[in-house]
């Protein structure tokens, strides 16, 4: 008998399926770095030859860098704000018994069940009616609406699992609510905050539809990519930049995972020679 239980014993068929699934998942994505080294402005087979020109070229593509910076700015702002608002909302929802609570949660989650195009259009109409000029701020507002439900959805379970006596203990030990939040609540929900931050940043960074309707002179990266899809001369540089972004995000995620694993390995080890 193996060391795994009856329910968990390996299933060959599923393993094969999982492998195929991952391959299909990755193949389209890996075309991006592949063609970023292809010596042709057209993305098509057969490959024309190896070149790193597109990477060298990147340095000179000011609009591309500007678009990247815009996306980073919007993404980080949106991630910070939506996570902050998400923390407030999740805490209020889990901490207090509020009348109409379910309706409020449903309202926050509304953007999840409404196509982006409708939001983009509605916000565009509102902005133009109110005479608000389109800018990265309007894009950020649109992204905020899209991201908030995700932030709240990520944070809510974390806050729901939160033991209220922790906060009471802090208050009891003399910390006012503000310090209690920073010394106890926040560190305990920290993983949820990080998850929310990463998720909202990723969503905003790749959001196209809102940006399509709400951006002006300052294109976000997806808007720039969209405009370059029609102009093959710049397109390989877009592929090159995207490959770099892909690589950086892979590296970051694996680094984070490694740190996480080291942390979790250390803990039980230290615990075993201690308690009782």
């Amino acid at each position, binding site marked *: 008998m193996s060391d*795994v239980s009856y329910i*968990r014993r390996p*299933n060959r068929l*599923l393993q094969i*399926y*999982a492998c195929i699934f991952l391959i*299909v*998942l990755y*193949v*389209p*994505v890996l*075309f*991006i770095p592949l*063609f970023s080294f292809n010596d042709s402005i057209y*993305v*098509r*087979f057969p490959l024309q030859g190896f070149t790193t020109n597109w990477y060298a070229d990147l340095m000179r593509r000011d609009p591309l860098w500007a678009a990247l910076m815009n996306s980073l700015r919007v993404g980080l702002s949106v991630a910070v704000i939506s996570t902050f*608002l*998400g923390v*407030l*909302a999740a805490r*209020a929802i889990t*901490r*207090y*018994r*509020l*009348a109409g609570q379910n309706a*409020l949660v449903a309202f*926050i989650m*509304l953007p*999840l*069940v*409404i*196509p982006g*195009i*409708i*939001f983009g*259009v*509605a*916000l565009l*109409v*509102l902005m133009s009616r109110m005479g608000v000029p389109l800018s990265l701020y309007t894009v950020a*507002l649109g992204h*905020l*609406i899209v991201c908030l439900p995700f932030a709240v959805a990520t944070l809510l379970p974390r806050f729901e699992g939160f033991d209220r006596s922790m906060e009471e203990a802090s208050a009891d030990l003399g910390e006012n609510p503000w310090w209690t939040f920073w010394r106890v609540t926040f560190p305990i929900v920290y993983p949820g905050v990080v998850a929310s931050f990463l998720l909202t940043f990723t969503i905003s960074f*790749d959001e*196209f*539809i809102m940006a399509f309707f709400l951006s002006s002179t300052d294109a976000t*990266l997806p808007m720039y*990519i*969209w405009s370059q*899809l029609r102009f093959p001369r710049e397109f390989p540089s877009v*592929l090159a930049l*995207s490959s770099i*972004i*892909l690589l950086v*995000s892979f590296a970051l*995620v694996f680094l984070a*995972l490694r740190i*996480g694993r080291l942390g979790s390995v250390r803990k039980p080890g230290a615990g075993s020679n201690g308690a009782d």
Partner: protein
Amino acid sequence: MIDAPLTGTRPAVVQERRPGRLAGLFHRSESLRGYTMLSPTMLVMAVGILAPFIILLAMSFWTRQGFEFDTTPTFANYARAMSEPIFGAFLARSFWVSGIATVATVLLCYPMAYYVAFHVHRNKMLWIVLMTLPFWTSYLLRVFAWKVILGYEGVINSALLSMGLIDAPLEFLLYSQTAVIITLAHAWAAFAILPLYVSLEKIDRSLLEAATDLGDGPAWRFLRVTLPLSMPGVIAAVFLIFIPTTGDFITPALLGGPDGAMIGNLIQLQFGAVNNWPMGAALSIVLMLWIATVALVFLLVTRKAQERLA
């Protein structure tokens, strides 16, 4: 909760740091604090959702007049949306395409989520990350990549040609509804895997052991225990994919070809080339109502099915 009224006759507090009366009220009224804490989020949502929707709704009753709008309320736009077959046809096509894409995505992702939840014992996190990493690349570029794969000289056609299975490249692969469905299914996989995985992971293993103990083989166990218990994940995945894809317009614009355009493209046209914002607003409202209806029907059907199964 009933709080004591704040009477003025209480003995003075001789505490060093005495909080004010207002702070006292704040300290005592739980729900007041709750609503205060919720208010910034609600404010943003009100500005970002309520206000635009009110104006969108209002605009859907207007009519275009050259560069301006005639704000006399009229049902003309809705009447047009009902009477002209193009709108209905596009709506039906959108629901068809994203419906198929949704079903395909959920069906394909379920075994994967199941595998990770039940058969991966170490490094589960690594698997989750592996499955979501592809979605960190730009959506547009992923769509574009599918264009390369499905294209005339694309990966599939080249492979089939070199294997001698076909004589000429398959043209239906690209610029068709098939292309849109394939791409949507790939692009939204993460939105299926995560809720499915979470709902499967939550299932208490002892329930499965109990089902086995009570005489269910793997197939029955799956049908009678695993599947019903993972239904919340399935429903979440269906909503998370079906609703946004119904309104998608980039994927059909890039890969759909003449017969692949969806309602999102039509709405976008009203705000772009056709330049009929009130009509676009009306179409958006109609789309939203239809989505709500479809979602409701889906919920009722799944509930009924679950009852039957149970």
